[in-house]
């Protein structure tokens, strides 16, 4: 027996000596990223990783102020009616496989991925090339085409990749090139020495797909990775004592909202929707469920989108008395069980939630009890998110808790035109059908004058603020951990580029 314990002790000692972990950091000049987003197929329209790590680039990009500037396109001009756009492709750029970037390749990319990328939302009729220009023709005026072409899923890959169906490699034009993609859960990248723009100072990147939030947090805490994205809100407390990482909270233009069927009585009345909005305690939801009181929405767009955030709007407030008053003047009276009745109909609605974002059903339950206070009976139905999309399509949805980003197309008009225009979209309004609003969207899409655009934005936001086609509940935070070893990192609210080529090791 003695021998056994001795052997165990020796083995233990040997293991702990040989087990010193390979610490990430300047030693091997590698940035490691723990990401909740899967890598997926190596095509730009399927993998956020390619754009975010700087492997592929798009024709245009948004600045932090939301202005659209050129990336692979040097410049562009529309015709007078905004139905034909000419993008001049940057010269002297080459793909990672050595082939040059040409207008022909760009046109072939846009054509091939048209249906899979944000381009499908634009009324495109033809994409062609002439010399060093890509010519996009549309069937109606469309001023936001440059913004659509900044979406990460419109990235450009080399001509060889377009015809190669195996998809085990990809050549873009960005500051990093893929060196190893044999592991479906990891991308190994190295700096592109021939990059046309700001060359990376850190030579290698490892992008790791780590679906479990706790694992990402532990990896950041142990110093195994330089970046960990989408951490639980509790990470701020858990990592507070760790001296090697900073936890940053960044508001991103994504909302959690109560979607309402505007074609269904009594939700078709503005006053009723306003009453629902007054009945919801956003501060309470934001602090106790989301974990950050600052995420309580005061209007549709958060302050991180200054062009769309209208500081002159009166913030949403929690005022059950006002809600009761609005409902009373709409003709409702309280029944014996405390539920409102009008013309013999009880005010009851079914609310659907889905759990791929785990906080949504919890928010649903909170709203259920808040609405009960003012006399609206809510029954819950939970499933996956297709209960929303299918319910929207077949018209059976009454209410639902949803979440969506506004800036996949870096101009929120993209999301507005998909989610609020006409009868609405899965992640926005439903049967709202406001002609005045639709006219504003159409005007916006054919306007180029910045002042007029600003006025149109104000009008659209005000209209949604007043009429509540969808009741905005909270905004969104991304909680991420950044190692103290790196400097120069700024989080991209458009979720399209980590800016890894700007990073340097901290002194």
């Amino acid at each position, binding site marked *: 027996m003695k021998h056994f314990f001795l052997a165990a002790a020796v083995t233990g000692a040997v293991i702990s000596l040989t087990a010193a972990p390979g610490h990430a950091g300047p030693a091997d000049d590698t940035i490691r990223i723990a990401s909740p987003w*899967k890598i997926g197929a190596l095509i730009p329209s399927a993998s956020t990783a390619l754009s975010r790590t700087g492997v592929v680039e798009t024709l245009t990009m948004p600045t932090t102020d939301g202005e659209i500037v050129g990336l692979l396109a040097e410049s562009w001009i529309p015709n007078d009616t905004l139905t034909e756009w000419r993008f001049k492709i940057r010269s002297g750029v080459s793909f990672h496989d050595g082939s040059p970037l040409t207008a022909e390749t760009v046109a072939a990319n846009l054509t091939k991925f048209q249906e899979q990328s944000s381009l499908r939302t634009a009324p495109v009729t033809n994409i062609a090339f002439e010399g060093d220009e890509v010519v996009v023709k549309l069937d109606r005026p469309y001023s936001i085409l440059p913004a659509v072409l900044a979406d990460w899923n419109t990235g450009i890959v080399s001509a060889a990749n377009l015809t190669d169906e195996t998809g085990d490699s990809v050549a873009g034009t960005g500051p990093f090139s893929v060196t190893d993609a044999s592991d*479906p859960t990891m991308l190994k990248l190295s700096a592109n020495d021939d990059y046309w723009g700001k060359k990376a100072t850190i030579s290698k990147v490892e992008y790791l797909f780590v*679906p479990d939030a706790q694992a990402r947090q532990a990896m950041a805490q142990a110093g195994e*990775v330089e970046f960990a994205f989408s951490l639980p809100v509790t990470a701020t407390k858990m990592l507070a004592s760790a001296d090697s990482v900073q936890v940053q909270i960044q508001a991103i233009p994504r909302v959690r909202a109560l979607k309402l069927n505007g074609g269904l009585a009594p939700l078709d009345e503005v006053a009723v929707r306003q009453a629902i909005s007054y009945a919801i305690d956003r501060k309470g939801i934001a602090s106790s469920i989301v974990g950050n009181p600052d995420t309580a929405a005061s209007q549709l767009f958060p302050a991180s989108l200054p062009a769309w955030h209208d500081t002159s709007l009166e913030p949403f407030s929690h005022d059950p008395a006002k809600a009761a008053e609005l409902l009373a003047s709409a003709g409702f009276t309280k029944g014996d069980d405390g539920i409102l009745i009008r013309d013999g109909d009880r005010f009851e609605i079914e609310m659907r939630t889905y759990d791929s974002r785990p906080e949504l059903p919890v928010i649903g339950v909170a709203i259920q009890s808040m609405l009960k206070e003012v006399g609206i009976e809510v029954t819950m139905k939970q499933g996956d998110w297709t209960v929303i999309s299918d319910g929207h399509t077949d018209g059976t949805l009454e209410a639902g808790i949803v979440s969506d980003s506004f800036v996949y197309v870096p101009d929120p008009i993209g999301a507005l035109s998909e989610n609020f225009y006409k009868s609405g979209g899965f992640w926005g309004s439903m049967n709202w059908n406001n002609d005045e609003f639709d006219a504003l969207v159409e005007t916006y899409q054919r306007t180029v004058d910045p002042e007029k655009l600003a006025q149109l934005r104000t009008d659209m936001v005000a209209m949604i603020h007043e009429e509540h086609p969808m009741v905005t509940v909270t905004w969104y935070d991304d909680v991420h951990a950044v190692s103290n070893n790196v400097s120069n990192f700024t989080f991209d609210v458009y979720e399209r580029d980590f800016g890894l080529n700007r990073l340097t090791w901290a002194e």
Partner: protein
Amino acid sequence: MTLAALLARKALLILTITLLVASCSFWAVHLLPENIAMQIAAARFSGTEPNQQLAEVVSQSYGLDRPILVQYADWLAGTLKLDFGVSLVTGRDVVQDIAHHGQNSLRTVFWGFIAGVALAVPTGYVCARFAGSHLDTVLTVFSAAISTIPSFLVAIVMVQLFVVELGLATLSGTSGWARLWVLVLTIALSISGLLSRVVRTAVIDVRLQPFMLHALIRGVPERELFWRHGLKNALRPVLNYLPVVFMFLIYDVIVIETVFNYHGLGWALINAVKALDVPLMQGLVLALVLFYLCCTTLSDLLTWRIYRHKAS
């Protein structure tokens, strides 16, 4: 029973169970009320919230708009040829992914099993040898505790202790002892608890057999007696218990790999299910079932080799 007959029977069993499980997983997915094309669109085009247009693109390109029986026949024909198709999410060959992840799982499961047995057998033997002593009580309480705590909880504690606090292990990569030892230890702990109890009982039983008592009274030294006559008899219940251990291993593969972010079959399965990557999911389920069946067959063969009769 001859070896050939035993092998033939096992092969038939494996084939039947595999096909049954595979068909179940096919129908389970395709009979779900959810819109599969939409789900896959979301998985494949990660990052965007999907819409109907995308779903239609997906539906056509994967043939999901064909009648379900046609899809089933197609799939069955492919499966019999060990062709599981390509992953809907990555576009890679499913067999390639299974090989990649299977290799990782085998690495930890193999060492975890060895370590678990190495931990359980001496513990059980010591308990039996000193049955009723303080040592026995302490070890009994310890193994009872280990086997009642769910292994994901053990795994979480291990991560917090060895990765976060002590920095003695890592959560990225798939090789190297710095990566593997905590995983191996966790798997070993999770199977050793119950296994050591089985060993203890088996050894006690054998020691109380009349032939053992008789020899003891005749003055044969206990250690010699046990190795010569006791071991073979004590091994029998332990070997019979192995299929249960393998079941625990499968469970561990799924749960522990997820907590440790270890890219093996279980981890891949969880993510394939989340993404509704049907071909990959079915391939992985088959791989796990096959793994289990092969392990139990091996233990049956071992039993047959030792006892030469009543192998099944």
